[in-house]
């Protein structure tokens, strides 16, 4: 019987920390700003309607506090969007995809290609205007069904999807851990 006891050196293990992560497309910041802008605009219209129609709200203190809270939320959201955008980055390796997202609570996900069940390219109307798309990677994991990489060029996203499917089909182990 052959017995293997190969030593695994720390330096032999591919290290994620040394990876050069690729930033997502800068136009995606514009997409985020427009989406949140629309949300705040709709919110403002509803709030103005409430202030016009509800008598109890026609009070200077209430109006001033509401406007202050609204402006604070608006500024905070836009500041955080800008900061969080800078942390969104990804890396494609031979056997997995690494995606970093979030600023206050940062998450780095490593998705091995042999665990991907299927992947979907999707784009909303604002993303389409900037020729952008998102790529959702689905695994069998419970609780975190998909990891979505936002802010890819439409063509890039489609190429990446095809590449993942190809890799799954030909080059890597078919074991999906199930």
């Amino acid at each position, binding site marked *: 019987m052959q017995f293997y006891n190969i030593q695994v050196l720390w330096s032999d293990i591919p290290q994620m920390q040394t990876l050069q992560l690729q930033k997502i497309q800068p136009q995606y910041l514009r997409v985020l700003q427009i989406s949140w802008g629309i949300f705040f605009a709709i919110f403002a219209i509803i709030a103005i309607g409430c202030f016009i129609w509800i008598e109890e709200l026609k009070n200077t203190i209430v109006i001033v506090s509401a406007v202050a809270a609204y402006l604070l939320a608006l500024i905070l959201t836009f500041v955080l969007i800008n900061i969080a955008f800078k942390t969104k980055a990804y890396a494609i390796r031979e056997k997995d995809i690494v995606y970093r997202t979030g600023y206050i609570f940062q998450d780095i996900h490593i998705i091995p290609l*042999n665990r991907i069940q299927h992947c979907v390219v999707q784009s909303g109307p604002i993303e389409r205007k900037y020729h952008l798309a998102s790529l959702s990677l689905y695994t069998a994991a419970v609780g975190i069904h998909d990891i979505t990489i936002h802010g890819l060029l439409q063509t890039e996203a489609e190429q990446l999807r095809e590449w993942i499917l190809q890799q799954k089909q030909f080059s890597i182990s078919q074991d999906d851990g199930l």
Partner: protein
Amino acid sequence: MMDFSLPQRQSIAALLNIIVRTTKTTLGWAWFIYASILLKQNNDQPKEGTSYILWGTVVILVFIIGRSIVEWLRFTFYIQQEQLIVNKGIFTKNQMIIPIEKIQTVHIEQHIWHRMTATCKLIIDTAGTNKEELTIHALPTQTAAAIKILLLQEKQSDTHFQTPNNQTIISLSFTDLLKLSFTANHLETFVIIFFFTIGKLDDLGKLFHFSSTDWIIEKSMEQEAINYSWQLISTGIAIVLLFSVAASIIRMAIKYYHFTISLSAKGFEANWGLIQHKQEIIPIHKIQFIAWKSNWIRRKIGMYLLHLKAVGEDELKKNQKIQIPITQLAQLQTMIKHYQANIPSQINTDINTVHRSFFWRMYILFQLPFLVITGGVLFFWIEWKALLLIIIAVYWLIAGLYKLKNFQYWITESAVKIQTGVWGRNYTVLNWKKIQLVSIAQSLYQKRKQLATLEMHTASGTIKLPYIDAEKAYFLADYITMQIEMKEEVQDQNQENNTNVSQLIP
């Protein structure tokens, strides 16, 4: 040999089951109407109310029987081209197609009425939904067994271990059953019974314009009656407590009656239950991780409840999940070795712990402010008695420190073992190969302190190592990813390896 390529119907006994189910659902709303008619009926003309009830009953009975027959006739199933095809529906025809390869588990349940009619219930589960995919309520026992074998045949073919037929691993003796029943969580049963009783009393109270919860609040608010009401409440609680101890003992005894676990080529085969006899097969390759736990008393007598977390397990109802009682440590090792050759803590004694801020941040940022605010609010109501909350603060402090001390983990080349718990203990063993993806989560505070939370996502849930050194988290993430991505043959070679991975961590 049964031919399942032709449409099959449920046993005629299923019709009885459908009638009972439909009656139960119908009476769910009808009893309220009946009760209202009876209470409101005119004393001068009592016959009027009675005749309404009589006619109503006839209409309901006709509806129940008619609906049940149509449901029974419309429900057919067959197997074609490796697919289980089910036709059902009362008013609209509904066809369900389940690819056999997607079927994760097939359960067989047998209630008393099933045994009387020589039938059983067949529950089929896939990984894609939040509830069981299909339930066939009554099939002749032999037919159900044949379908189960047929549906799981595909699954068995890839099981790569050979074992003798049905080797019994665990068989619960009468003494074990008694130990298990007496050490059950009686407090949990008490809380369930208490709130269930209050809820039911309130439901009944609606008819008589009486609310039990209001009554308890009112009585406790009345200063003159306070002693009387507290005496009554404490007596009531004592009775319910005694009753719940008895109830939980009976519940456990019924649930675990004649519990056996055996090992066959199909996987672990479990049989249990007195009133409702259940049988389940868990293919070993479907197990994602193994967890076992014990409360304080059970830990003292060396008793644990083992949970085999298989694919799709999270989607099962609570009463369908098996918790395997372990009375000897040897049984635990026999069960685990088929999933993971060695328990990490046995071959690597290096204990890893989590950072102290795992507890302190929670305590200082959330628990203490919560108690201060609650105390502040309560002060206006019960004045200085609000200071009693200090007892809770002290308890949370002691419990939290124990929780921190007990959070330990052991790492080897092929798996991780995690221990958690305050007074009791919870253990988890996870083989790296079963992980679907790995995440590293870091808050701003964690970043500043060079800490991170490692999240290991499996097809049966997520296991976390919170507040560990960031460098260790990155190393483990890299190492796990390498294990997942390594080709099978390399993995098999390394299975024999017992390298202490902790020593590799820079």
